[in-house]
């Protein structure tokens, strides 16, 4: 019985090649690993090794032949003592017909994709997030976040927190104040300044069954670790066919603080929100910080929890409940209104609420939707509000190009076009690195005046 030696594909894109040179001749005995021929691919000249052993019974394609299609029989191997002329060819290894290899470029050019199934829909329950009669107390975002960390660490022994200055220093921004005292050095771990590997160690610990909370002193430093966040944490569940996920939280302040200039002031919301496999929270109120953080720790997926240094010291009413959580993918109507919808999140909410107050002077009542999470996004609440007000603007501090605002505007125009009386306008940070000078910094961020102006514009006032 003879075995056909087929023209091999020697690169991901090769469809044909030149049989440059035979290094064996008819009658030669070959064994596995022997080099049979030199083949020119679209990229280079390659040596082609034998897989099976036998005698070269017949060379079917002479050397120097160009444009030999992949999978064309190029030689016959026979067993010792056989002749190529009187053998039956074993076609057992003949290939399947297959489609042309689809490269990522093909896919990009292909354009149309099957419609995505709906994002996880928020529950449509109308009841409030806290039961009637619940007591509230005033807390800063900082205190609410600290309480959420402590409550989750009490609930689950496998939850631990690691990062720069989280333990003995009590947190660079004092988020982990008192946590070391309560939980000890086994579960509250100071790390060297080594973001890339901290993120990787966190991913490995999650693979190994723990529930890590990795603190970045700021998300600006997480750029050193973004490979681990995107390539390792976000993609492994998919790449493993659902066998192995990465339940962990990456948290820390994000965006501009005050006067720390370009390298410490970037808002990464749009970066992380574009990655399938990640969940992204960017809360505004202390209650949402607490409730969403507790949900983040319990979530079986990697969560990016984007905090804000300026908000850390702000006070809000937080419900006094034994286990208060807020679900991902559920927006909150922060202020009801009938004239336009302002969609915002995180620190953007701070500007949006001030602008809404200003607008009342002109008799414009804005409805403010706080998205709270950017992945998943509660599109339904946004669309319902836009159908009511027929006008919409978005507010965020991030860069304007490829921003979350672009995404929301596109979604609203696609899904509520017939309800819109004006184009959706986006209010964002400016398209410049953050300057240091106080006056320039103020100009670089989104301003209340700009929001008021955009609101008037969509109301034609």
């Amino acid at each position, binding site marked *: 019985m003879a075995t056909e030696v087929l023209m091999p594909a020697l690169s991901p894109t090769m469809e044909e090649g030149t049989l440059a040179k035979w290094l064996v001749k008819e009658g030669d005995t070959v064994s596995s690993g022997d080099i049979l021929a030199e083949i020119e691919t679209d990229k280079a000249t*390659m040596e082609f090794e034998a897989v099976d052993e036998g005698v070269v019974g017949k060379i079917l394609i002479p050397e120097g032949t160009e444009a030999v299609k992949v999978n064309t029989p190029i030689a016959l191997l026979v067993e010792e003592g056989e002749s190529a002329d009187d053998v039956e060819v074993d076609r057992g290894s003949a290939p399947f017909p297959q489609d042309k290899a689809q490269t990522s470029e093909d896919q990009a050019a292909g354009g149309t994709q099957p419609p995505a199934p709906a994002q996880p829909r928020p529950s449509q329950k109308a009841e409030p997030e806290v039961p009637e009669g619940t007591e509230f107390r005033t807390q800063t975002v900082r205190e609410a976040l600290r309480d959420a960390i402590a409550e989750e660490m009490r609930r689950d022994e496998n939850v631990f927190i690691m990062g720069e200055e989280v333990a003995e220093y009590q947190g660079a921004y004092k988020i982990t104040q008192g946590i070391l005292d309560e939980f000890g050095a086994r579960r509250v771990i100071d790390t060297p300044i*080594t973001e890339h*590997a901290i993120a*990787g160690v966190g991913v490995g610990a999650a693979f190994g069954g723990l529930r890590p909370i990795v603190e970045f002193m700021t998300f600006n430093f997480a750029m050193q670790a973004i490979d681990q966040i995107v390539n390792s944490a976000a993609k492994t569940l998919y790449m493993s066919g659902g066998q192995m996920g990465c339940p962990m939280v990456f948290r820390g302040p994000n965006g501009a603080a005050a006067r720390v200039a370009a390298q410490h002031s970037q808002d990464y919301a749009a970066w992380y929100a574009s990655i399938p496999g990640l969940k992204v929270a960017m809360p505004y109120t202390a209650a949402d910080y607490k409730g969403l953080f507790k949900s983040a720790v319990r979530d079986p997926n990697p969560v990016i929890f984007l905090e804000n240094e300026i908000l850390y010291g702000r006070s809000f009413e937080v419900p006094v409940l034994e286990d208060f959580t*807020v679900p991902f993918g*559920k927006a909150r109507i922060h202020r009801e209104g009938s004239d336009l919808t302002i969609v915002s999140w995180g620190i953007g909410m701070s500007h949006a609420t001030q602008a809404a107050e200003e607008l009342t002077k002109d008799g414009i009542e804005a409805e403010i939707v706080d998205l709270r999470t950017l992945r998943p996004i509660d599109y339904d609440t946004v669309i319902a509000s836009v159908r009511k007000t027929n006008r919409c603007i978005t507010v965020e501090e991030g860069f304007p190009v490829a921003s979350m605002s672009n995404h929301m505007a596109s979604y609203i125009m696609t899904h509520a076009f017939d309800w819109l009386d004006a184009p959706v306008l986006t209010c964002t940070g400016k398209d410049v690195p953050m300057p240091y000078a106080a006056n320039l910094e103020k100009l670089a961020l989104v301003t209340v005046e700009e929001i008021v102006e955009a609101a008037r514009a969509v109301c034609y006032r």
Partner: protein
Amino acid sequence: MAARRTTTTTKKADAKPSASKEELLHYYREMLMIRRFEEKAGQLYGMGLIGGFCHLYIGQEAVVVGLEAAAEDGDKRITTYRDHGHMLACGMDPKGVMAELTGREGGYSRGKGGSMHMFSKEKDFYGGHGIVGANVPIGAGLAFSQKYLGTDRVTFTYFGDGAANQGQVAETYNMAQLWSLPCIFVIENNQYAMGTSVKRATTSPDFWERGAAYGIPGEAVDGMDVLAVKAAGEKAVRHARAGKGPYILEIMTYRYRGHSMSDPAKYRTRDEVQKVREERDAIEHVRQLLLDGGHATEDDLKAVDKEVKEIINEAAEFAKESPEPDPSELWTDVYAEQTPQGEAI
């Protein structure tokens, strides 16, 4: 290739290790399984049944087979993209691995991972990672989890001489020793980072010595001798399991094939490859030990060859016949199922 003597930071090389007939036969079969698997994978790639990148392990078989012989149940392993050998050596099914290479439903990742991204929680194999060096801190994280949970399981973190120059490897050494993590860093030094030889990539080519900067002990090991690899592995495991922290094994090995299937390998001579194959081949080494020691006849070994070939052919048939994943699989496994969110919503 620069063959270096086995050295340790603490003492001279141990006495030459020996092995029983059963052990030798086991190593022979395991290494042959990997080689035949990889040859078949190369063949299927040539036929267009395997796409993308495909990095073959041929030549390096003694590394994983030797270290698996030193591992116990529950020990973890993680590696980079040249991962087929690691998966077979830790007991993963050749059918599932081959079917993943062909991108089929029967693959370990149901066709969604491919050659570089496969996992088996059951066999404590944590991938299969495509980013050079990224698996190193993840391996330390696995070791961290075991220490945190109070087990004495160790983690084998494999990477190449190329990855050894990545910054996160240095970061990981620092933390692993600082926290005494039970992590064995295995540098598979096959002399070439893709097409760049070690001497063209670093002025400190003794990778195991870099641990000294952090206080991590280590040694270089002859990676073409499965018994030497196993002996070094046992020593490293003893160290890590006893809670003494990480250990570095730099295993001097050689890959016969290109970096990936599309590598013409012009950065080295055919003679260089041929010399290693003829003089230092790891499988041939065990084969000679079996024959010279009177543990097996040529016919015995032929029977093993035949059995292995059948297993690999079955794996290839399975990988060809397994259907492509259902189109609905595009949208599954992006997120894990939601956990209950608590009552007060």
